[in-house]
């Protein structure tokens, strides 16, 4: 059992060696939370925590922190995503103090997609700090009770379980593990990866992770995304930077009588495979705009029921 430093349920499950399951909810492009609550109720018994994206792909959506409170009220533990794209260090700290005060205990730090392809391409991009600096500063805020400026926080410092992302499919490949290690050195305690389709490359990545002993210093959750159609696969393959989708997956979906069913099958196979890779501590299911499929995937991948956390 590893040491537990926060009130996060996710951290407690990981610390006691459970293979965890996280999912993702993308907030809507309007001001009504019904769909968030609907997804939360659906996911509740099938996942240990759920990410709430922060205006993913730079498209304006209901806020990550507000969404997190909606799902918290439904009994689902949120992982708030915080990007460096839209807020300077004043706004980031303020929002995260607020998030903690509302009961959020998990934080995922990201750079964020550039706004160029989002819904506000003429916006100013902020990038006051980068994701590694955000990890470092939030960890220091928790463990040394300091604001980013170095001023002391007299009391009630936010005590987040701090996560980061890793993309084994971006370049330069040989530096990807080094950069992951840099994130862990900066203070990241759990890692969620980009969605994995190229299993061979992910296995090589994990081999390098084990060589450096990174899996002993941070929990690694492998990302998967079920695909609805061969066109979706092709789109990821050709139009999304930092993604590798092997042709055989595109072909398999093309040939399938029921592509959605096939997409679910592929995802379940991936999870079963990933579960046997040493150093992987859980799976992160990003069913983008297809949240309702998560319970079936969790169940059929043999990850149901989810373990209970006392207290």
């Amino acid at each position, binding site marked *: 059992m590893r040491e537990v430093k926060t009130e996060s349920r996710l951290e407690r499950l990981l610390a006691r060696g459970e293979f965890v399951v996280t999912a993702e909810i993308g907030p809507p492009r309007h001001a009504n939370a019904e769909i968030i609550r609907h997804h939360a109720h659906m996911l509740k018994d099938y996942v240990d925590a759920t990410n709430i994206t922060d205006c993913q792909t730079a498209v304006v959506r209901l806020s990550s922190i507000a969404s997190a409170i909606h799902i918290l009220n439904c009994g689902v533990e949120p992982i708030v995503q915080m990007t*460096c*794209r839209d807020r300077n*260090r004043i706004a980031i700290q303020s929002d995260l103090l607020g998030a903690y005060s509302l009961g959020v205990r998990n934080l995922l730090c990201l*750079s*964020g*997609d*550039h706004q*160029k*392809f989002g819904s506000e391409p003429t916006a100013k*991009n902020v*990038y*006051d*700090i*980068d*994701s*590694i*600096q955000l990890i*470092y*500063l939030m960890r220091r805020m928790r463990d040394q009770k300091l604001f*980013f400026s170095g001023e002391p926080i007299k009391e009630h410092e936010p005590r987040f379980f701090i996560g980061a*992302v*890793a*993309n084994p*499919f*971006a*370049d*330069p490949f040989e*530096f990807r593990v*080094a*950069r992951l*290690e*840099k994130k862990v*050195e*900066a203070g990241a305690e759990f890692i969620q990866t*980009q969605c994995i389709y190229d299993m061979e490359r992910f296995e090589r990545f994990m081999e390098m992770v084990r060589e450096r002993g990174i899996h002993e210093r941070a929990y690694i959750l492998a990302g998967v995304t079920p695909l609805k159609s061969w066109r979706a696969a092709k789109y990821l393959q050709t139009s999304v*930077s*930092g*993604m590798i989708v092997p042709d055989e997956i595109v072909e398999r979906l093309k040939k399938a009588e029921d592509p959605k069913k096939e997409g679910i099958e592929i995802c379940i196979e991936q999870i079963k495979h990933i579960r046997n890779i040493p150093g992987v501590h859980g799976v992160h299911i990003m069913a983008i705009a297809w949240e309702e499929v998560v319970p079936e995937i969790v169940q059929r991948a043999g990850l149901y029921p989810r373990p209970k956390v006392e207290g």
Partner: protein
Amino acid sequence: MIVAQQKNIKDIAEMVADAQKVLLAGCAGCVTVCLAGGEKETEVLAAALRIMRKLQGNPLETVTYVATRQCDPEYIEAMDGLVKDVDAVISLACGVGVQYLAERFKDKWVVPALDTKFVGGAVKHGVWEERCGLCGDCVLHRTGGICPIIRCSKSILNGPCGGSQNGKCEISKDVDCAWQLIYDRMKALGKLDKLMEIQMPKDWSKARDGGPRRAIREDVIIG
């Protein structure tokens, strides 16, 4: 150098629609080198504006002048005589030049003919690229001589982000990933271990975020 590009001529004409006589002021500095506001461009723009206005039945008279630099008071004083007789001044300098003219010729309508784009250089004939973000606190000694502040779309100091693929940035296949360039160069120099050091947040108060900046050299101040 400062790299600028000429605005749409219709927009320039619109800015001086009320004038009967204008001075077009070029600059022999950076904008001459980047082919935006030198002698040739000044004459061409003057001719184009005259033709446009003639076709509209509202002829425009133009005079032209090219200053050695518009960002130095001593070189714009020479324009005093010319400015006196015109209704407006069109500056083909960067934003600095336009402001210096506006400051000196207080009762004149001074307008910009160029959009000032960035600080950079030519990469081949006719193509210029941005190289410096003017952040006021150079980090090039830590990044192999490649600036992540301005050449990384996210100004990341601990890159590359997850959007780097095949050496290109997530925003465009035409944009190099600055961090791939940094990685390649540091690797070639045998200094990859330097990239493992966590770069701390930048002091943006030294950039424009700290308010308008001023550089002072006490030893050369006269009077």
